[in-house]
């Protein structure tokens, strides 16, 4: 849908920016306020990419706003550099570099730790600006005398020195910033960022270098902040030290949250409301300093009740108005989906990597041991799977099956032992690298990107296969990636989710989610696919269908399946490994396992869960 009308958003943005100075003054906005809104809005675009799209809540954006602003202002004032725009870009680059360095530290942690670290690091910048660098930045003085931009066109000099001409200057950069941001969020990188926001664990598991992408988002946000900081200096002819304060970061966060995150326009709307109210409350209502109290209350109420902000609220209302009829149709499709689709049941062949062979052992684990504190989860497991094999792994609860799988896919490092995949030692490798080598798994508990649609989910997985673990194609149209759509379509078809492609994952039925779970693993074109209880929680009919599905997937692919449903497993697998108390009890064909007395005692005769 997004691609149906190309450049619609861009066109509307341009129209809006042209109309704003004509319309807004009648609503009580003064020109200076409008200019400020644009600076905050541009600052906010970057922040939204970081927070709204990638899910990283930074309270330290002031560091980059200030860095960009002061570098640009320093060039234009003290250094006497005459080219305003070049100075702005240099400021932006400086902020980006600083963002990269800060990101290296801050992104070591996530969640609240990340938030706290960004606050603290931004504070360092504040103190550095004040004391050690005061001779350059002016300390408390800031840098006054930032010139207004002017361009010598040969026949005339265009000067941006009035409120309206400055508006034109700012609006141009806002527009450009928005166009770039739209490209980024629509690019493969944007898709992956959204996936990271939803489920960083799975994004890494399907083979994306999550840390590198987070860092990318961080640098993008820093660059936007830096450019906006430079514009602030140009707009008011003065680069204030306040740019570095916690207040600046906090105001940005509040504006973005008020306007609505994940929309790119949210911060602009938030800034407009913020600055308008601050004017209105102070001037019209003469509230004096109490204006901030009112805004604080507005903010808290919005966070409590309208957590997607104003734009999100409007979108929800629209969805509500249109939603009723559509929802009924959706549920009707639920059960039917699986059978109605017919056609080629071929999965995409496994992606052939240089190191791949076609015979012999694909995976060899020797002496695999995992210890959690005093608990021995896996003990000295030796395990080999050959190319083309379909192996089943069974064992009672607590036998260490999941831990075993986690070690094989490099989710957790083994305490001892060695894992060789396709002749390569992958012990201690990251889950992302393992996936890129062609080894991935589907999870026992669904690990999906719940806020994205089915197609978007699958795209994320397939992108990892098509683009490798990290690539900075921020301006690329995903539709132009060779084979991407085809592979997405085929995988969706294989797991029977074609008709549900544009449904949000959170709206899927349980069985559909399980199929998508497998589909995500499949989307990465693994040469070795591990399935952790793919049948868990399914109805008998769904189990039959899924076994059929697994059989079709297994063609031309090596698979290892854990499950409790032994009937299904005996039907599927060529060989079975039985785990018990963290060790291999026995291994053999289904018939041999069924006949084995030790297995019968330990498992078949024992407690079946």
């Amino acid at each position, binding site marked *: 849908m997004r691609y149906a009308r190309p450049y619609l958003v861009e066109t509307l943005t341009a129209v809006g920016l042209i109309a704003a100075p004509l319309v807004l003054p009648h609503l009580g906005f003064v020109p200076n306020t409008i200019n400020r809104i644009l600076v905050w809005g541009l600052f906010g675009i970057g922040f939204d990419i970081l927070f709204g799209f990638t899910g990283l809540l930074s309270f330290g954006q002031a560091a980059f706003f200030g860095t960009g602003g002061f570098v640009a202002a320093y060039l234009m004032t003290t250094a006497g550099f005459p080219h305003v725009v070049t100075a702005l870009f240099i400021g932006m680059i400086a902020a980006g570099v600083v963002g990269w360095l800060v990101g290296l530290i801050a992104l070591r942690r996530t969640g609240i730790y990340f938030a706290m670290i960004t606050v603290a690091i931004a*504070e360092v910048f504040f103190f550095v600006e004040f004391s050690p660098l005061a001779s350059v930045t002016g300390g408390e003085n800031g840098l006054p005398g930032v010139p207004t931009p002017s361009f010598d066109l040969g026949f005339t000099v265009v000067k941006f020195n009035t409120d309206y001409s400055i508006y034109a200057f700012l609006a141009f950069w806002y527009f450009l910033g928005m166009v770039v941001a739209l490209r980024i969020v629509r690019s493969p990188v944007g898709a992956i960022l959204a996936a990271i926001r939803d489920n960083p664990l799975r994004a890494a598991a399907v083979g994306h270098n999550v840390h590198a992408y987070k860092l990318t988002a961080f640098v993008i946000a820093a660059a936007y902040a830096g450019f906006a900081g430079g514009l602030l200096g140009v707009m008011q002819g003065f680069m204030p030290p306040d740019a570095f304060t916690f207040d600046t970061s906090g105001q940005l966060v509040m504006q973005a949250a008020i306007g609505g995150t994940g929309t790119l326009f949210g911060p602009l709307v938030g800034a407009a409301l913020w600055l308008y109210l601050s004017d209105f409350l102070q001037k019209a209502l003469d509230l004096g300093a109490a204006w901030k109290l009112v*805004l604080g209350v507005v903010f808290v109420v919005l966070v409590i009740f309208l957590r997607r902000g104003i734009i999100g609220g409007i979108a929800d209302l629209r969805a509500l108005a249109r939603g009723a009829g559509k929802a009924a149709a959706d549920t009707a499709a639920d059960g039917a989906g699986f059978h109605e689709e017919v056609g080629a049941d071929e999965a995409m062949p496994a992606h052939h990597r240089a190191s791949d062979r076609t015979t012999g052992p694909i995976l060899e684990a020797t002496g695999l041991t995992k210890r959690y504190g005093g608990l021995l989860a896996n003990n000295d497991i030796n395990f080999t799977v050959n190319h083309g094999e379909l192996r089943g792994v069974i064992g009672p609860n607590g036998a260490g099956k999941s831990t075993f799988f986690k070690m094989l896919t490099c989710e957790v490092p083994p305490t001892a032992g060695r894992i060789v995949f396709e002749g390569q030692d992958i012990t201690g490798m990251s889950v992302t690298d393992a996936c890129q080598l062609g080894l991935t798994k589907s999870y026992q508990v669904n690990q999906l990107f719940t806020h994205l649609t089915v197609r978007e989910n699958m795209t994320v997985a397939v992108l990892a296969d098509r683009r490798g673990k990290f690539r900075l194609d921020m301006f690329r149209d995903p539709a132009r990636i060779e084979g991407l759509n085809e592979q997405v379509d085929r995988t969706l078809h294989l797991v029977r989710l074609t008709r549900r492609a544009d449904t949000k994952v959170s709206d899927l039925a349980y069985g559909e989610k399980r199929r998508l779970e497998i589909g995500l693993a499949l989307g990465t074109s693994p040469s070795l696919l591990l399935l952790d209880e793919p049948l868990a929680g399914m109805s008998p009919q769904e189990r039959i269908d899924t076994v059929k599905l697994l059989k079709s997937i297994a063609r031309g692919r090596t698979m290892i399946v854990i499950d409790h449903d032994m009937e299904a497993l005996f039907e599927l697998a060529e060989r079975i490994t039985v785990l018990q108390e963290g060790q291999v009890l026995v291994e053999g064909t289904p018939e041999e396992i069924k006949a084995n007395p030790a297995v019968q005692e330990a498992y078949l005769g024992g407690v079946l869960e």
Partner: protein
Amino acid sequence: MINWVNFASQAVNGLVLGALLALISSGLTIIYGTLGVLNLAHGALFMIGGYAGYVVYGFTESYVAAVVGGALFVMLVGIVMERVIIRYFYARPHEDQILVTFGLGIVFVEVIRFFFGSLSKVVPGPSWATGITPLGFMVYPTYRLALVAIVAVALVVLFFVLYRTRLGMIVRAGIEDSTMVGALGINVYRVFMVVFGIGSMAAGFAGIVNAPVVSLTPDMGEAILVQTFVVVVIGGVGSFPGAILGGLIAGEIISITSMFDPGYSYVMLFVTMTVVLVLRPYGLLGTAGRE
């Protein structure tokens, strides 16, 4: 003034500041450890403690009454905050919790500004701790020394509550594994409320006992909040001993660096935090697992 006498003097300053930071940070850290909520209004609670004490002092002219009244008032604010808003955020993402407490912090600051204005307020110290105490190498304001003792007592009380009572057991178990505590059939939400109250009180108490050495302004909590973050990151999020250790380290770094150049004291503090993060990502006394 780089000499041993000054070093010793600054170390005493560091102890005063560190003790205060330790107390405030332990409030933040037990709330986070138990409830999983990072309270960005913690600095504002510290500030409210000072103002509440200021008001009580205005009526009673008694330092003790100001401290007790201020601390209890902030505890009440904390409990009301938890009951009315925070409890609805346990199930929401961390980001929402951060946003709402950040917003509440601003509301608190602005409410105080509304009622008390921006001009700073002064709370005098107790009569038994005015004047100067000779320390041999320097003279030191008596109240600041008393402050260390007062904060130490508060931390000991907090230690007993956390390590010697049933509530404390639950809190510490909750820090280890919050689902387990719930499974044990303990009314977790009641515990949450009490913990939020106690954590807030720690900040409020610090705010009022600190009031006689600084002057109160509505935005005094912001700088403290940031320093508290650093303390918690250094000590390890959720760790009570970590908060105390981190607080003392932070206080000493700030003070001892200022012997060389006060302009660098906060820069050094944050550099230390960065080093700790790189070498021990979960803090000096923290454990992996909580994010």
